[in-house]
């Protein structure tokens, strides 16, 4: 179990701080966090199942659901303890929240059921949170002075989205992938190249020893608005490897990564120009990719834009961002009913 930013002493802050406990179980991470006033992370605990799924080369839904249930109480217990709280403080919480979608239904329901049950037991509101909206709050937690409007490039195994952020809780969807998500392309190509799972870190590691100019992979839909596509690129990798067996895996990985990064950086800057953004943020697991971070920072600086690159722990799935989002939701639209469930294919929320 990984705990970030580390245990707090028994919390002695102002008694009026509004504490939210959130659970995040949408995919293969069981996470719980306590956030004060929607912006101060008191604890953020993430128990990753990556080792359980690695040998299958992808997330196995039923294995994920079982692991969530197994890790549920230890993770909640740790999140409360690291925040200097225990279960007896439950009734003092402003809310208990959980990710209700999008994600794997069998995984989502573990967090939703537990969060609703805790809220009922403690007599506090339950707040259902859209995972994609949650990711947008990660930047707010680490960079509260972010200049708006900002463009958020949200890239992970399941989504590739460009979002205009006007203020916390006010945003619009600008574009996204028309097929595979960027992280999904990394996973599939890594699997094809025999580099293992998860694909992002595996490709990044191999690419360090390769030449990004070895193969000129296509940059699909580069100048076609704010949508992108990665499935053609994945096919191009397969075709190229078959046609040129002399290429090293490292060179293919480096060239593939360069193409993905090129497309993402290009699209993010195009989005920033289109909406007159003052800054660009990264979010999602692919946001931990080194070359993507470096290239985005460089390109944004050249365009006179500020960049905000969250820590790796904030890029990847965590419950702190869900708690921050829940706090804003609670203020804006109140509690969610106890008869609410989970929605596996929930889209990006409109505001």
């Amino acid at each position, binding site marked *: 179990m990984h705990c970030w930013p580390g245990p707090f002493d028994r919390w002695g802050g102002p008694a009026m701080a509004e504490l939210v406990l959130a659970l995040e179980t*949408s*995919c293969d991470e069981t996470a719980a966090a306590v956030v004060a006033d929607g912006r101060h992370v008191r604890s953020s605990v993430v128990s990753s199942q990556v080792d359980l799924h690695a040998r*299958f*080369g*992808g*997330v*196995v*839904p*039923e*294995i994920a*659901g*079982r692991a*969530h*249930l*197994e890790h*549920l*109480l230890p993770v*909640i217990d740790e999140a409360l303890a690291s925040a200097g709280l225990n*279960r*007896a403080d*439950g009734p003092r919480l402003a809310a208990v929240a959980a990710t209700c*979608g*999008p*994600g*794997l*239904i*069998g995984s989502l*329901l*573990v*967090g*939703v*059921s*537990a*969060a*609703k*049950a*805790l809220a*009922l*037991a*403690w*007599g506090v509101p339950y707040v259902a949170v859209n*995972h*994609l909206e949650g990711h947008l709050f990660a930047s707010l937690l680490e960079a509260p002075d972010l200049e708006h409007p900002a463009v958020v490039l949200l890239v*992970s*195994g*399941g*989504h590739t989205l460009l979002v205009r952020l006007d203020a916390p809780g006010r945003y619009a969807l600008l574009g996204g992938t028309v097929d595979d*998500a960027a*992280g*999904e392309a990394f*996973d*599939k190509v890594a699997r094809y190249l025999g580099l293992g799972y998860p694909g992002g870190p595996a490709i990044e590691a191999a690419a360090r020893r390769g030449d990004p100019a070895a193969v000129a992979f296509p940059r699909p839909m580069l100048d076609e608005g704010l949508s992108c596509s990665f499935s053609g690129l994945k096919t191009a990798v397969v075709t190229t490897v078959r046609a040129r067996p002399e290429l090293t895996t490292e060179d293919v990985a480096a060239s593939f990564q360069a193409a993905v990064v090129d497309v993402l950086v290009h699209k993010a800057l195009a989005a920033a120009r289109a909406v007159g953004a003052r800054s660009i943020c990264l979010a999602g697991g692919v946001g931990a990719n080194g070359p993507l971070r470096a290239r985005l920072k460089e390109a944004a600086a050249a365009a006179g834009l500020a960049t905000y690159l969250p820590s790796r722990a904030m890029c990847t799935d965590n419950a702190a961002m869900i708690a921050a989002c829940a706090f804003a939701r609670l203020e804006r639209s109140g509690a969610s009913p*106890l*008869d*609410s*469930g*989970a*929605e*596996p*294919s929930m889209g990006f929320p409109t505001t």
Partner: protein
Amino acid sequence: MTMAHAERGGTVLLAIESATLEVGAALWSDDGLLATASARPGRQHAERLHPLIAEVLDVASLTPASIGALAVDLGPGLFTGLRVGVAAAKAIAFGLGLPLYGLHSTVVLQAAAGERSGSVVAVVDLRRGEVAWSAGASLERGTPEALTAKLLAMTPPLLLVGDGAIRHGAEFTERLVGAGCAAPEIAGEELAAPPVAVLARLGFAAAERGERGDPFALEPAYLRDADVKINWSTRHDEGAAAVQV
């Protein structure tokens, strides 16, 4: 035990059922059943369970602070429904610092059939041509054929209860009669799913015996390894393909 029921002098147990096609909640005390509520929600276990818990508390004019122990159906049953119930039960037990007792659905079904001569066998449908059953204290899994072989050796008269008994009842009868045995009695729909009030009674007895009931240690009885169908869209879409009940 919290002050509220310590003052009243007895434990109130909350039972949670969502392992099969039915979801429900019940409260049991020294005075017996205080309240029970259940529904057949299709796949909407998570939507229906929590309001039913609130409903039984409301009917009994109690608050969550009055609960002194919990019981939950550990299955075997439908994987997703099972997890919804166990997650809720674990969370309430953790949140209020209470013991949680897990009982198998087949044990609850057997108890629901009551005392009688001969043999009572609880049969739960596991889908894909398999059933789980309890006769006495055992819990086994196999094909209906495998169960038939066991039924032939049991003391008659036989009473079969549970959704698996209903689904495969004709087959059991045919094979037993074919082998020269008496036809088993197949219980009706009222014993298709484990009644939550019986789960509450059995859980209450475990609490009275002072069993430990550690909510951290509790694990569902899946009885079957996970399907290793990979969800290629690893993160957040393709929810429908990932549905496993």
